[in-house]
């Protein structure tokens, strides 16, 4: 009987993604409930079979490219296809070689610190992150299935030919080729009959699984970034109540007990009405000492004598809570920084390879795009390749950009809370946090470039420039 595997942290959040990756044939052997030798062996066999099939078909495509390399158009088209699917092979290999690094990143958030006053906010933003991650997964899965479907549909339109260069007359002729989604060399004749159907089925399987392999890994990367961004949102949201708490340590503030009341609505985390600040002595803080702590269980002892050097008359325990809030904030922020660093280490090289191959593919696609002469199969397939490649780059650029924005906006949040009313301790805390958050956290592709919308803009700009120049030269 398969018992539910006990997971925590990021692994629980990303479980659907992980299961899909295991199904697609990635070499992901952890996070199963049943770890007996037999099932491990079965899983390894499953992944190896997928890997072998994918690599073999890829090599067949490459052989086809080498075979028909005389004619320029045919060569360009085949090169684009080969480069397009190079992503899948590379990502499959990359994960297999680097799986330890991936496991380490997934395990970073297994345990995190907590503070009784901020558990509410923590849970809320965690839930937000979860929703966004699921939505992204469904979206990308949908896009993958749609792409495969439209590819297969497009196969049935247009002439099923390939271009050959006639050596004597130096002009291009067409020669009939099998009507398959991908041009590949097979050792058997695939023009018609059962072999044709078998090859077709193999190619549909191959298309689906290789696209899924590449996309699922990207989704995992982007899900990590979503998680990090939501954690930063949580930190920004608790900055205001933290300032209030810290201010209550050594300046007189009415309604201090409101701050210590951890409730579910956001309103109570807001700063009390500034008008009240001027009215001193009217509010009797003696009454407002009730503390209800969710998650810590039960009421605290609230009726000890107020300490003499505390103007708001907070008890020892409440003072400790206020001090520990800063500790919680800083340690949580450091945890997020470690997570982002680990993400960058794990996935940076894969991003570098992706960008290298995409740059070459997009250059060739720009050349192909100049030859579009009407609404036909050629136009659709070229535009399809273009949108898909640009979409892949956009996918991780936008999440990388969001991370950069979130991490530098922490400074905004720190500045926009009422730090001037806070204690000296709070002010130094704001100072150091602002200083640290000036340098935004970002993901770099093995130090060569930073993943942000600037990168996408430069890629897009380069493609458009190339296209314009080539059109002019024609």
């Amino acid at each position, binding site marked *: 009987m398969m018992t539910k595997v006990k997971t925590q942290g990021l692994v629980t959040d990303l479980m659907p993604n992980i299961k899909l990756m295991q199904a697609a044939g990635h070499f992901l052997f952890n996070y199963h409930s049943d770890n007996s030798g037999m099932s491990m062996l079965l899983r390894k066999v499953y992944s190896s079979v997928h890997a072998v099939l994918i690599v073999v078909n890829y090599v067949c495509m490459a052989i086809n490219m080498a075979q028909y390399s005389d004619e320029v158009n045919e060569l360009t088209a085949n090169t684009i296809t080969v480069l397009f699917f190079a992503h899948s092979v590379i990502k499959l290999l990359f994960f297999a070689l680097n799986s330890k690094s991936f496991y380490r990143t997934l395990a970073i958030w297994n345990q995190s610190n907590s503070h009784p006053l901020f558990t509410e906010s923590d849970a809320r933003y965690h839930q937000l992150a979860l929703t966004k991650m699921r939505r992204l997964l469904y979206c990308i899965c949908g896009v993958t299935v749609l792409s495969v479907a439209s590819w297969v549909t497009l196969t049935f339109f247009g002439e099923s030919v390939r271009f050959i260069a006639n050596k004597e007359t130096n002009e291009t002729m067409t020669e009939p080729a099998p009507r398959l989604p991908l041009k590949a060399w097979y050792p058997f004749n695939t023009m018609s009959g059962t072999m044709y159907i078998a090859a077709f089925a193999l190619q549909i399987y191959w298309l689906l699984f290789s696209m899924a392999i590449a996309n699922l890994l990207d989704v995992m990367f982007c899900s990590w970034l979503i998680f990090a961004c939501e954690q930063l949102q949580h930190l920004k949201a608790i900055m205001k109540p933290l300032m209030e708490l810290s201010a209550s340590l050594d300046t007189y503030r009415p309604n201090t007990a409101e701050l210590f009341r951890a409730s579910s609505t956001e309103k109570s985390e807001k700063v009390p009405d500034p008008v009240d600040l001027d009215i001193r002595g009217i509010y009797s803080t003696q009454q407002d000492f009730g503390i209800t702590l969710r998650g810590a269980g039960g009421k605290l002892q609230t009726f000890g004598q107020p300490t003499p050097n505390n103007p708001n008359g907070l008890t020892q325990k409440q003072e400790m809570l206020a001090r520990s809030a800063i500790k919680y904030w800083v340690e949580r922020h450091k945890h997020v920084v470690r997570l982002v660093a680990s993400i960058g280490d794990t996935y940076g090289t894969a991003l570098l390879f992706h960008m290298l191959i995409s740059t070459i593919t997009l250059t060739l696609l720009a050349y192909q795009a100049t030859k579009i002469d009407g609404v036909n199969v050629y136009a659709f397939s070229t535009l399809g390749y273009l949108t898909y490649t640009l979409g892949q780059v956009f996918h991780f650029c936008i999440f990388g950009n969001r991370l950069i924005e979130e991490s530098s906006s922490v400074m905004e949040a720190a500045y926009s809370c009422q730090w001037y009313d806070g204690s000296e301790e709070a002010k130094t*805390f704001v100072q150091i946090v602002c200083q640290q958050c000036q340098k935004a956290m970002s993901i770099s592709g093995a130090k060569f*470039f930073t993943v942000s919308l600037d990168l996408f803009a430069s890629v897009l700009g380069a493609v458009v420039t190339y296209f314009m120049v080539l059109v002019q030269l024609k």
Partner: protein
Amino acid sequence: FIRKYIFRKTKTVADESTEDRIYSLDDFDDTLAIIKKVLWIVGLRLTLKDSDNARFWFSVFYWFETANILMAFTLQTMETIEDTKGASSFEDATTLFRMIPCIGFLPLAILKSYKITYYESMYENLINELRSMWPQGKVTEEEHTVISKALKQLRIVLKGYYWCNYALVISCVVPCYIIIIKNIFGKNEPGVLPFLWWVPFDPLQPIVFEIIVVIQTWHAILVMSFILSGDLLYFFFISHITTQFDLLSIKVNRFILVPTDQQLIDIYPLAIHYKNFKNKHSPLELVEMQNKKLCEAIHEKELLDIIVRHRTLIRLCKDVETIFSFSLLVSFLNSSVIICFSNFCCVVIEKWYEFMYKSFLSTTLCQTWLICWYGQKLLDSGERLSQSLYSCGWYWTSQKIKKNIHIMIHRSQRDVCVTTYGFTKICLASYTAIIKTSWSYFTLLVQTYKQ
């Protein structure tokens, strides 16, 4: 029996690791050994105490070598200019392309070694200061990881670079010797000089030819040694400064103790430091550490040491910048020109089974990459220091220490790096810029060639 054997094996491994964690100045001097070998060929005496007489003769030797290289440079340039004048078609100009890389190296070699003579005191000061900072005695596990990794990398880079350069020189020169040997055995092949010189007489006469080949071999070794001396010293300094930055980061991470609780759970790094401290010290000392005034005094003193060390390292980086920036600029310009031309020759002139230009291209790419990689390492180590300043337990100290740490964070966020004479920082991003520029010049050349 098996269990006993395995137990014994693990025990020896554990013993070895504690043995390894003891460092001494010998480790530092070892890294300098190969550089001293190169400098001996060049005739520069760094960190060596010579009598005035020996010093005089060595400087004579050095200037004699420099004069040789200058002569080679003038002769080659003259020959190239003659060739260009006589070149009728583009094909003849390809011999020009063969010579341009060689000509580029000569002034670079002179520049690099000249810097060593001009800034000799600065070099010696750098070496001595880095030597004084080297950790001696037993170090902690973390420090040991950092130091051993850096030492291993430095050894591989120094040795590899040294031998690769020798291999390059030999591959340039050996074909000529093979022809000479063939001629001795009776075959009458026309001699091929390694480098083309303009000489007022026919260089291919029987005895004159051999002499010129020997002289050119010696020149090639000289040029290579001059360039090696500059580059190896650059790698040496950057590697040691980076190691010191990393050791400083480790020290910063450790110097404030923060107790564990719900906000600082056991698996966080600061909590691990606290646990290690608890294991090493008695409970009485732990209670002492709770005393805020005592803590503050200890923290102040340690922070002062850290600040002084940080300032020293920044000053040493500035020194490295002063010494190396101009020669690195010339080196980069040289490399981009060579990459462009060798790429062109690889694609247009050479067949796919020939290797001369391909090896030239790959060695230049590797050399530039190595320089940029070391520059990036320096940049990264400075950034790691700023990260570790934030990740120490600053929120658990007094206001005074917090303010000091804040100013330190501010300074450490500014990049500590070497620049090419102010134009660009030396890092992997600038490497991509060089490749891109060379690529665009290469495509331009190919276009002009096609017409």
